[in-house]
């Protein structure tokens, strides 16, 4: 019983670590640009396909494939943003941010179907060596899952360094914290929003590629996880980067541990129930307030 519970926690942590990447991307984009970008789901799928293409056709190994996933999702993210979302952001009405969010849903649909057109609806698996599970006590962990966990952790550390040590990172946190004040200090919001979109979508792409490595990629890979990614980001308060990571780990563990009490078919409902309960108690998420700048 206890080992079963522990196994669920380990599985949840691994899933949570991978979900943390797109959740970080979503949070970053929301912090800097001020709207919820639903097209992050399709960008996860873009990353999954980009990595799969170079891995299965050109036989690149995992790390270069992930780099390709990052670059492809980031680039397509910027193109989509320029074509579909930027013109909407320029309009200033009372509900601009929600209008942009709705357009991003349409963008998500367009991207997903562009991929379905090109690749079909089949499941595509990465071509990586298969190895036996590691067994620690009675806990089973796949080596690939350990890799995923490692990559996610490494990226989180790189990101933390970027935001605390570099000028760009600090500027981004400044914009997230107070856009008007940041502009007064001469920070160009347009350049930063491009960078935020690139990094955010790139992170989503890596997340999608890691998920695809663990299972497979098809046009709906990202959309299936949209809710859980959003739940992670919302738990963190939508503007807190550490909050997004903690939210993702929490959601990952909760949804896996919930399997001990509910039927697996309702696993994805746990994300919804969790955010509903959390938002009831704390309408701005668990970690809202510690946005961007360290006080």
């Amino acid at each position, binding site marked *: 019983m206890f080992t079963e519970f522990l196994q669920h926690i380990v599985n949840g942590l691994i899933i949570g670590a991978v979900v943390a990447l797109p959740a970080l991307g979503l949070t970053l984009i929301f912090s800097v640009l001020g709207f919820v970008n639903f097209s992050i789901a399709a960008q996860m799928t873009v990353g999954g396909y980009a990595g799969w293409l170079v891995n299965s056709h050109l036989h690149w190994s995992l790390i270069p494939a992930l780099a390709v996933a990052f670059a492809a999702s980031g680039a397509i993210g910027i193109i989509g943003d320029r074509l579909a979302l930027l013109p909407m952001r320029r309009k200033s009405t*009372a509900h601009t941010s929600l209008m942009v969010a709705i357009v991003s*849903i349409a963008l998500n649909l367009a991207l997903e*179907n562009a991929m379905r057109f090109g690749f079909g*609806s089949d499941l595509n698996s990465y071509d990586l060596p298969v190895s036996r599970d590691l067994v620690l006590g009675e806990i089973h962990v796949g080596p690939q899952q350990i890799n995923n966990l490692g990559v996610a952790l490494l990226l989180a550390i790189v990101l933390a360094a970027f935001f605390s040590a570099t000028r760009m990172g600090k500027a981004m946190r400044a914009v997230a914290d107070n856009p008007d004040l940041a502009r007064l200090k001469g920070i160009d919001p347009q350049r930063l929003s491009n960078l935020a979109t690139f990094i955010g979508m790139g992170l989503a792409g890596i997340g999608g590629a890691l998920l695809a490595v663990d299972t497979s990629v098809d046009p709906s890979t990202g959309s299936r996880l949209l809710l859980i990614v959003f739940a992670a980001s919302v738990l963190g308060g939508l503007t807190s980067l550490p909050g997004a990571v903690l939210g993702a780990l929490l959601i990952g563990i909760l949804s896996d541990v919930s399997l001990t009490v509910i039927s697996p078919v309702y696993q*994805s409902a746990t994300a919804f129930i969790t955010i509903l309960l959390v938002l*009831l108690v704390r309408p701005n998420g668990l970690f809202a307030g510690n946005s961007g700048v360290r006080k």
Partner: protein
Amino acid sequence: MTSYLLFMGTLAGVYALLSLGLVTIWGQGGMVNLGLVGFYAVGAYSSALLNAAGLTIAVAWAAAFIIAGTVGAALCLVTRTLRGDYLAIVSLGFAEVIRLIATNEKWLTGGSDGVSGIHAPLKAELGAAFPWFYLGLTWTLVALAVVCLSRILSSPFGRALRAQRDDEQVAAVAGKPVLQLKLKTFFVGAGLSGLAGAVYAHLTSFISPDGFVPLMTIYIFLAATAGGYTRLIGAVVGSVILLVLLESTRFAAVAIPGLSAVQVASVREFSIAVILIAIMQVRPQGLFASKPQRAPRLASKPGEAPAANGGTTVPIPHH
């Protein structure tokens, strides 16, 4: 061909009811409801199951309205403190949970096999005239909904609702019962979506979870924005545009040679998405723009500055 057109005409009426629900909640109430398809499903299943349990169709439809509306009001109550962004995400999740329940509670909903053999009203009695009758019935409901909504929305309730939409705090300061306004609006909007589901269920006589995917919500957003998402007439016209668009892309995509079935479907959905993006960019107010609301002028002194919100404020004397 006639039966195809009749079916499509009826379907346009179903979409019109859904769009009216969206215009009520989103356009007039200012709450982003991405869970529209969830209420549509609740209405469809409620009506189909209640009718199968022995209630007459009229009662089942009324029940579908009330059940979907109550679920909507409950969701609104639970999410009352949330900002727009959060509400969008939570309502999207709500629709997914409804679909999960419809897929997995086999004892109630038949699971992914769905509910089949749903009775249509007077089908046996009317015979060949039935499609005409159902088309008329559907559009009568649409007309009824438009009349009722326009009465509600031009009443003081409607004004308070729009005040709440434009600035919740100001409306609250002015003494408007913001939460109550939101709950009632959500009840009516979700109820209309539920009624649309009921009409759809008895039209096709078969419903399954596959019919209630998030894509449907996007279609209705397209219909509402194409027509003008704050206007009732916009919702109705937008629904007809949506249906023409959906059907013409079906024929256009099939006409492209050398495409697989999956590709045809993806071309359709792709073009719908691109059209929605284009409309939002070029003409976000849609075909019928939001009417600027003028306060009534003082009858005695024409040409003077209008007094705000006639009746409730004392007119400021001019020098």
